């Protein structure tokens, strides 16, 4: 949310601050819209189920290929040992059951993403909060943000109202990159959809390429989740969790000296 439309509360009284009060450290502000909060927690459940059932499906044939075809005698670019039971759904081997979960929650994942993208287009979330400006794309700005992250110096006060550019890159990468990729490559593995939408095969270079990209996109989402949770812990887990549950976020106080 931007300073312009964020609702701030005075840190002392807890009452909503006057709209012309400048946001400053310690102030409670409305950070996340309801649609963002709902989608976030739905995704936590959905992506966990998709990952764990996906690992069980992978276990049925833990080899990855490029191109249209690929089986045991063909060259696999990656072969992994089977994932352990604590990482899979169900925990003991059942390809059939994993597919039941995976293919049902695939609808939840895809429809929720579609709904969230449409909602975010309409309410300005993409334009105001996620759009990366020309100034932010400048190498000097990107580099400063990298250095700030490396020093664990996070924005405070009014600056914390907005996502920093690395955050925007991560969120945009997931929203417009990894999630559409994981969904489309998943659809590309369907022989029924190969008949209906053959361009998907051309887009990803064949069914086995799509299967490899599906796995890599899932790995990318796991990496995102690890970094995401790490950043939440470093930035103050209680404040961050509250903001994603209730929407209210306490702006970190400005550093007095450095």
């Amino acid at each position, binding site marked *: 949310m931007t300073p312009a439309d964020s609702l701030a509360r005075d840190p002392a009284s807890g009452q909503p601050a006057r709209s012309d009060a400048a946001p400053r450290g310690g102030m409670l502000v409305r950070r996340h819209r309801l649609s963002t909060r709902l989608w976030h927690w739905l995704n936590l459940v959905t992506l*966990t*189920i998709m990952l*764990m059932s996906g690992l069980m*499906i*992978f276990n*049925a*044939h833990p*080899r990855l*290929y490029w191109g*249209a*075809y*690929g*089986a*045991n*005698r*063909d060259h696999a670019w990656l072969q992994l040992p089977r994932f352990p039971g*604590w990482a899979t*759904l*169900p*925990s003991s081997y*059942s*390809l*059939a*059951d994993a*597919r*039941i*979960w995976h*293919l*049902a929650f*695939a*609808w939840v994942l895809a429809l929720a993403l579609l709904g969230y993208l449409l909602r975010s287009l309409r309410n300005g979330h993409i334009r105001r909060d996620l759009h990366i400006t020309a100034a932010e794309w400048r190498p000097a700005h990107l580099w400063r943000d990298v250095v700030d992250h490396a020093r664990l110096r996070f924005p405070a006060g009014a600056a914390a109202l907005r996502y920093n550019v690395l955050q925007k890159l991560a969120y945009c990468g997931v929203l417009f990159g990894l999630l559409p990729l994981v969904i489309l490559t998943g659809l590309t*593995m*369907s*022989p*029924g*959809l*190969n*008949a*209906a*939408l*053959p361009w998907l*095969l051309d887009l990803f270079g064949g*069914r*086995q390429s799509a*299967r490899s990209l599906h796995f890599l996109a899932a790995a990318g989402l796991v990496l995102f989740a690890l970094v995401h949770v790490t950043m939440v*812990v*470093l930035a*103050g*887990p*209680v404040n961050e969790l509250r903001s994603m549950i209730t929407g209210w976020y306490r702006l970190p106080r400005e550093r007095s000296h450095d």
Partner: protein
Amino acid sequence: MTEPVSRRALLGTVAAGAGGLLLAGCDRVNRSPAARALLQSAEQAHLASQRLLGGQALAPEFTRADLSPDFRANGNHQANGNPDWVRHRESGFADWRLRLDGLVLRPLELSLEALRALPQRRQITRHDCVEGWSAIGEWAGPQLGTILRAATLLPAARYLVFHCADSFGPVPYYESIDLIDAFHPQTILALAMNGQPLPVRHGAPARLRVERQLGYKQAKYVMRIEARATLAGLYGGKGGYWEDRKDYAWYAGI
């Protein structure tokens, strides 16, 4: 940092505990019949959406340059448990007859020669095993629709059941498709693969190719085709060996 470390540790413990509960919970939900039924209702959404999007669209076809160097055989690699099939194999399937019965006006018994005399469709397609691997092969044989029209389905017929000679246990393999897939132009009874008579490990003398679905639908060692009004009463009632045995989806377009 303003958050005390102990709170972080607490959060970590809570997260680990939640993870354990999640695992146990998912396994429990997985066993609940009501939850399974809800999850499995997605199969109808797959069927409806794919039929809506695809209609009678053809599965992609490839060229000889795309053929898998070594086409892995799915399912059983022989049907030695069936004495009739063994006898037919020993005589080169000369006396083998494909039986088409059930809800048809004229039950048929077709020899390999008779099946080969029908117009043959040749198609190079990709076979996708439910496990995840794929292989490209060239298949040739009569369209199933040609055979069905010769027998004339009765109005009540809704499904074609393929009774096979191979088995994983006491029950012979079986699979079923509906009439939309049965009359799809690429649905053939393959008698040849890569220009040769169908090899034993790929289902000799005849196997189903239903190209918009996964490998377990491609019934091998087909002995009999039965037209039925419903899948109820066929073994476990779910329409196929793996469907009954392990709860794989009957519609395997995904």
